[in-house]
């Protein structure tokens, strides 16, 4: 199994900066990021893509059905296959180019993002 192109540390550091900026804009304070700890999971390689896992869990709880395409029967396996050897941004841009989007409480999201969020919610 190939992991993401970037190490978890790199993702965590780089993503953390972006998250700090993003969350400030929508009114969430940075210290909240430090609150939640998740128990180890066989899918941690996938959750490493989620810079803000708390936010993803919140979104994932609202995903009503598995996203379209290959994610239907084995969500984690499908995501792993979709993300193999590339970044989340690359996978989501491919989703968007193919029109693979889903609605989550009305928000139009790339299928892979919705899938990751759904998986995160299942293991929260």
């Amino acid at each position, binding site marked *: 199994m190939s992991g993401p192109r970037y190490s978890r540390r790199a993702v965590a550091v780089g*993503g953390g900066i*972006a*998250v700090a*900026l*993003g*969350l*400030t*804009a*929508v*009114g*969430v304070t940075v210290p909240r990021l430090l609150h939640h700890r998740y128990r180890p999971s066989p899918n941690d390689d996938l959750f490493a893509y*989620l*810079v*803000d896992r*708390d*936010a*993803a869990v*919140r*979104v994932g709880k*609202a995903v009503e059905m598995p996203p379209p395409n290959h994610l239907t029967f084995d969500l984690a396996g499908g995501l792993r296959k979709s993300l193999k050897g590339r*970044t*989340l*941004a690359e996978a*989501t*841009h491919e989703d*968007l*180019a193919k*029109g693979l*989007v889903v*609605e*989550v*409480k*009305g*928000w*139009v*999201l*790339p299928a*892979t*993002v919705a899938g990751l*969020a759904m998986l995160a919610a299942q293991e929260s």
Partner: protein
Amino acid sequence: MSPFIDARTLPTGTVLEPDLAIIGGGPAGITLALALAHTPIRVMLFESGGLDFETGTQALYDGKNAGVKYLALNASRMRYLGGSSNHWGGWCRPLDAIDFEARDWLPYSGWPFGLSEMAPWFKRAQALVEAGSWIYDDADARMDAMAPMLKFAGGGAYTSWFQFSKTRDDVLPTHFGTRYADDLKHIPNLKVFLHANAVSLNLSGNAATLDTIDGATLTHKRFTVKPKATVLAMGAVENARLMLASGGAMGVGNQNGLVGRFFADHPIPRDTATLVHFAGELPGYYFNGTQLDGAILRATIAPTEDFKRKQHVLGSLSTIENPVELNEFDKAAIVTAALAVGADASNAKAFSVGCGLELAPDPDRRLTLTDERDALGMQRLKLTNRVSDNDFARYRATMKEWGRQLLAAGTGMIRLNYDTRAEWEGALDWGDHHLGTTRMHKDPQHGVVDANQKVHGIANLFVAGSGVFPTYSASNPTLNLVALTLRLAQHLRGVLK
């Protein structure tokens, strides 16, 4: 100079014999009178109202509503010189080429001619509605230079532009009666009658021509008009009413039962979606009219013609309205999506989106006569209004596509705010754009008027205005009906020479 004539001063029994009678002094009627100025055609224009709003005259519009909630029939139009231009918002945008096409997935669609038939008249129409230079198709680069436009990836939605009718500077919009009253008075071959109502169209014995029109005033004066040709220009609702109320049980021009059917308007649901712009503020031209080359423009988001064809969606024109607040779930969705596409949402702001929708033609969305009568003895109307679930679904498809394009560009995202029919209906307003009730089609089985707007089967009766639009577009109708009326004027010059 020829002052307006108050029909209430006419001796009872007066018979007027113009070459052309124009019934109705709104944008279509006034445009036609202006276009036929200084020709040998002796024109008389009959306007029900005066120069200002009068309660008694406006009450002639009273009617009933059924079905999907709609505006009262006496509130969605204005009955005095200038007609409904007395309360329009001045929004202008030309029809698109696809609006004229017969689409096999859209029953009853298609005009008897294409956009090229209308195109020669748009510039003159643009001048009449005073919407400035024609820059609908040419504004992107210059507006972007003024302030960067919202970027979204290629696909099914694109930025288009409204232009606004304006009387001067930023005074909106052109009220045809006020604006053109003096021009009308100076047309030597025109007489304008105010407080002059047409109450019956009387056909010749073989019903092949219109013989006379019964005229009446609210002061109980009766007069007769015996024209060589007549144009009904009272708006889509009242044109249908006069045709249905004339000629016995069948009505005039109603041999195939089409008059009053296919009524349409533009639903304007509020807050249909929430737009998040990751970079924060948007240029002012998304929210308000902005000056460019003497024109006033506002950005709108529309589906491309290619997307319409492939996805079987209809026209919609979405506008960005007001800043809105987001809840915790919304913030989580934004953070999750923005990070996933590698976007910086640190300055993100959210805005409500409104829109005007095109409806699919529906023969059962219609006007019918009731047994109630108005002060002139004319039967009143009932409007049965309908909107199909598919009309909403088509718009959702466009907005979903826009959301996809925004995320693909890493510039923003969309939340669709309504899913159920109850939610949609709860948010509905209407454009007061009356359309379709005397639809145009080359085949009398499918249309009330032909490609020259002549009523099928009647040699000298024509209909002007957006009531002849067989498919409707999402564009506001005034500019387009003015252009179509200029085309009609050209035809009438030939007919009446």
